[in-house]
């Protein structure tokens, strides 16, 4: 029974999959346009773009990490703890090891070592969470709730909750480099990560395995996937991304502290969901996540320009937008389902 391909159906199905991206794009353009119209002299100026590019990478990178874990059907609530712990280890090392008043070329190897320490910390933090989830079968939401407490606790414990400042000047100098006098290093790092992870998800074997595992862990096992290894590697990637975010936060604040970025956790989950990552696993794209980050950033930067409007309206709009998108998606999918039922009966 070799059937001929009806072009109408696949086209519709593809549009259905990318509907979310399209909606996000429309929303982005809308927010951008609104802000430009309301604040033509401030919003979307070069200086404003520059400041936006400094702000979003730290939470954006963590949002990508959380998105990856959500695609495999889990969640990583430990990203902020991992970021701060990594930064604190790196800061402690720099403060302790770099001699006072050393010339830049002597400091450079220490910086490289500090970055390596941070990345290794992130990797280990992620691996531990992955181990708890895959080997000990603790639900991801609880395991990472625990690791978040644990990592933040260690970070508070070894610093007595105080900020670790007095970092070598070179660190923040490098960290705040701007390429072509315009693109901050953190923005360039974000772009590299988004492209790299996006490619990994859509084109690599590991990415496909993550989607499949997130859809049905049992079937993945029967198809010969090594579930434990995929989960551990996913949380390791999330951990490394968190430590990169930690290093960026450290460069921005010129210090490391156990409670930096505390509200980022739920905000990142929100970004992931709004960006189209299925909270039940198996679906979602980095493009969507990036669009969601940009929408949030435009909103927040734009609102900053109204002196009489608190930046907390961002939370209101953000929460409101999420609920509206959900309601809209729901009503849309009810209709799509009805249509699909009709088609399948045909």
């Amino acid at each position, binding site marked *: 029974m070799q059937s001929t*391909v009806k072009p109408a159906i*696949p086209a519709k*199905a593809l549009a259905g999959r990318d509907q979310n991206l399209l909606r996000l794009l429309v929303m982005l353009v809308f927010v951008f346009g609104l802000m430009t119209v309301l604040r033509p002299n401030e919003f979307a100026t070069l200086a404003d773009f520059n400041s936006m590019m400094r702000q979003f990478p730290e939470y954006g990178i963590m949002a990508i990490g959380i998105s990856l874990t959500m695609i495999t059907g889990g969640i990583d609530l430990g990203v902020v703890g991992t970021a701060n712990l990594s930064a604190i280890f790196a800061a402690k090392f720099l403060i302790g090891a770099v001699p006072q008043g050393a010339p830049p070329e002597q400091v450079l190897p220490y910086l490289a070592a500090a970055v390596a320490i941070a990345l290794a910390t992130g990797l280990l933090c992620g691996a531990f969470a992955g181990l708890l989830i895959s080997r000990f079968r603790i639900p991801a939401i609880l395991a990472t709730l625990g690791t978040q407490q644990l990592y933040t606790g260690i970070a508070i414990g070894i610093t007595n909750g105080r900020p670790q400042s007095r970092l070598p000047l070179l660190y923040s100098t490098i960290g705040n480099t701007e390429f072509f006098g315009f693109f901050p290093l953190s923005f360039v790092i974000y772009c590299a990560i988004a492209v790299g992870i996006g490619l990994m998800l859509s084109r690599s*074997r590991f990415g496909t*395995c993550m989607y499949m595992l997130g859809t049905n862990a049992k*079937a993945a096992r*029967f*198809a010969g996937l090594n579930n434990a290894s995929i989960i551990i590697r996913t949380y390791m990637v999330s951990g490394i991304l968190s430590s990169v975010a930690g290093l960026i936060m450290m460069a921005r604040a010129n210090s490391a502290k156990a409670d930096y970025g505390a509200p980022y956790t739920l905000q990142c989950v929100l970004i992931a969901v709004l960006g189209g990552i299925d909270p039940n696993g198996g679906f979602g794209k980095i493009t969507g996540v990036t669009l969601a980050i940009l929408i949030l950033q435009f909103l927040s930067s734009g609102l900053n320009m109204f002196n009489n409007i608190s930046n907390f309206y961002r939370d209101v709009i953000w929460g409101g937008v999420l609920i509206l998108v959900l309601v809209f998606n729901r009503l849309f999918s009810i209709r799509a389902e009805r249509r699909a039922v009709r088609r399948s*009966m045909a």
Partner: protein
Amino acid sequence: MAASILKVVGIAKSFGGVQALKGVSLEIDAGEIHCLAGENGSGKSTLIKVISGVHEPDAGSIEIVGRRLSRLSPMEAIALGIQVIYQDFSVFPNLSVMENLALNMELMDKRALMNWGRARAIAAHAVSLIGFEVDLDERVENLSVADRQLVAICRALLHDSKLIIMDEPTSALTKKEVKALFAVIKSLQSRGISILFVSHKLDEVFEISERFTILRNGENVAAGSTEELDHRTFAFHMTGREFAEASYKSDRAPGPPVLSVKGLSQVGSYEGISFDLAQGEILGITGLLGSGRTELVETLFGISSPDSGSIEIAGREVRMRSVKDAIALGIGYVPSDRLTEGLFLPQSIERNAVIGVLGRLCNSLGLLNRRAVAELMSKWIAELSIAAKDPSLPVKTLSGGNQQKVVLARWLASELSVLILNGPTMGVDIGAKYDIHALMRELASKGLAIIIVSDDLPEVLACASRILVMRDGAFIQELEPATTTESRLGELSTGVA
């Protein structure tokens, strides 16, 4: 002749312009066991939903105990004595047997408060109706599937039922449990309760019911007394096609064994299992649920490890620590539960098919070669005649048979030497079933060694070149399909003559 308890005439029902039922009629007498059969999509479920008041028919009449009704709500249907026992039994796994039995009654009575004393009394009464012995305080999730079903049956009896509709009640039961269920059904019949038994297994239809109705494409195609039925006419009515199957015989000269199992044991599952499997052979393993058959083949696929004994592939002893190891050794496995173990339902047909061979479809950078994936996919769609409109659609849009072909496709791409199929045609339409059987024979004739685990005895007889019967974790007999019968196989696997 007893008065009819249910009489539906000319029921039509369409969903969004699609006719699911095109004027179906069904009549059930008081105290009768009636079988309703049909393939997936034949309109069986829609008809049940019309009878139980879930769907309102577009046309036709419903007459219950002589009362002609134009409209019927689910609550009215229950009040008139119609009860449906769904395939998932609709029980609360986290609540006690007592609550499961009493809650519906209490809700029917519109009570706002929970009276535990009354609940216990209701539950005790309910289980006493069929002499079901169970701890009323036990949580239902700790019961066996058969016991859960009995809970559902007891619950139905509480409502002074006149007609109990059972939707594929045996699909999750062992042979022994099916016997027990049939005894319960007979005892219900002796109280004057009618049963509408929905099934597509002929032997069950024969054994339990007196009359049958077969639906196809939303229409009545046959009805009558069960005695007039045989395998061939049953299959013909269900599918509208004629099938003939001869038993499979390998035409290869027996070569050295590809797979050789010696004294394999796993405590609590199976013991002392030994057999050889040669190229081109189809080995049938049959046995009851709990006989250790699934545990055995899962061990051969690296899912669990044996406690003693050895497995040899092409003469070399191997140890499999994971599914990955088994696949590397050329072993493929089609699991028994397609929906939860075999497929990633919302993912694309393409992803489902290529998941096992992703490594080979990557370029030197480790990125997937999309063209290679597409080429491979169209090759399989053609070879296995998978009725797929577009490989990027979710696999759940396919019918059961086509879904199973996608699972098979996953293995055909790999360099297999042994393919193990566990219940390969469960829940598959008869048409697709024959396609899958034909494919198995073709693969075997090309030199693949196949193990088929099934309790569908006609299937084992038709496909296997050799049959091993498993009981209580051990092989008890080896049989030639040509010289044995279904009843002999049944006797051996149950241990009762």
